[in-house]
């Protein structure tokens, strides 16, 4: 299996339970990756952008971003929009993982450039399975450096 030690998985998820569940199910396929939680969109944007809009993040890192767009404060869609508008951060694959099942939201997210839109399954078992499949898929995906 491909080593992913360079890729950090950033997860915007305000629910601690969900984050732990996601993390635990990603770990088998991403033992060497940093899995980082952000509680809200503000924190994600602060991670990537300085106050003046300049990009500021760790050099020579690869990222994958999972967004829960229902998270409060800065709207998840706003985060997606901002990330996909910047020349550098637009290279980060963004997976929307959220409760919302609204077709308009789905269309909106795809037109803003999300990679996939996944609805969180309600059943715990299904949720776990879904994340594992996401993990397996991400383990065969190539990501790119952001500079």
């Amino acid at each position: 299996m491909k080593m992913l030690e360079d890729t950090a998985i950033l997860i915007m998820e305000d629910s601690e339970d969900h984050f732990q569940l996601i993390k635990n199910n990603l770990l088998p396929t991403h033992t060497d990756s940093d899995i980082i939680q952000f509680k809200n969109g503000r924190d994600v944007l602060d991670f990537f952008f300085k106050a003046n809009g300049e990009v500021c993040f760790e050099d020579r890192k690869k990222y994958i971003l999972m967004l829960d767009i229902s998270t409060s404060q800065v709207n998840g869609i706003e985060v997606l929009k901002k990330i996909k508008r910047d020349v550098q951060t637009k290279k980060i694959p963004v997976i929307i993982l959220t409760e919302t099942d609204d077709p308009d939201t789905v269309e909106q997210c795809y037109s803003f450039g999300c990679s996939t839109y996944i609805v969180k399954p309600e059943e715990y078992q299904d949720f776990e399975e879904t994340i594992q499949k996401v993990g397996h898929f991400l383990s065969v995906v190539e990501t790119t450096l952001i500079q």
Partner: protein
Amino acid sequence: MKKDTVILIAEDDSGHFQLIKKNLWLTCVDSEIIQFKNGQDVLDFLFDMDTNAADEDMKQYILLLDIRMPKVDGMEVLRKIKEDEKLRRIPVIMLTTTGEPNTIKQCYALGCSFYMVKPVDYALFMEAVQNLGKYLSLETIRLPFIKSNCA
């Protein structure tokens, strides 16, 4: 995966196409699969669609795109799709033999959803395509609807 999802595979090598198709099927992907042997055919298919067709004709597409292809290469196809207001919503997954970091970067910059390298080792190849298949077969995955009059 829902039946009305169409997987478009742009792959000039029929051997590769068969291997991809076979392994997708192994993961119970029951979507329609269409092969295109070069980039121009993909563009023709997508751009000739009547995007104003009735709602009942709407389909969900996902494109698996190779890079080195006759006529129009994959990067150009990707650029054209992502420049189009409506087609840009289609998730494009690069599935190619190149693992060149520069190419990967360019594809992500152009707006591909994911980039996958076809492994030479068949066991790894199977794993990669099957993982993709399982991902695409997720019950709760949502794809954009593209209006189309094509079957």
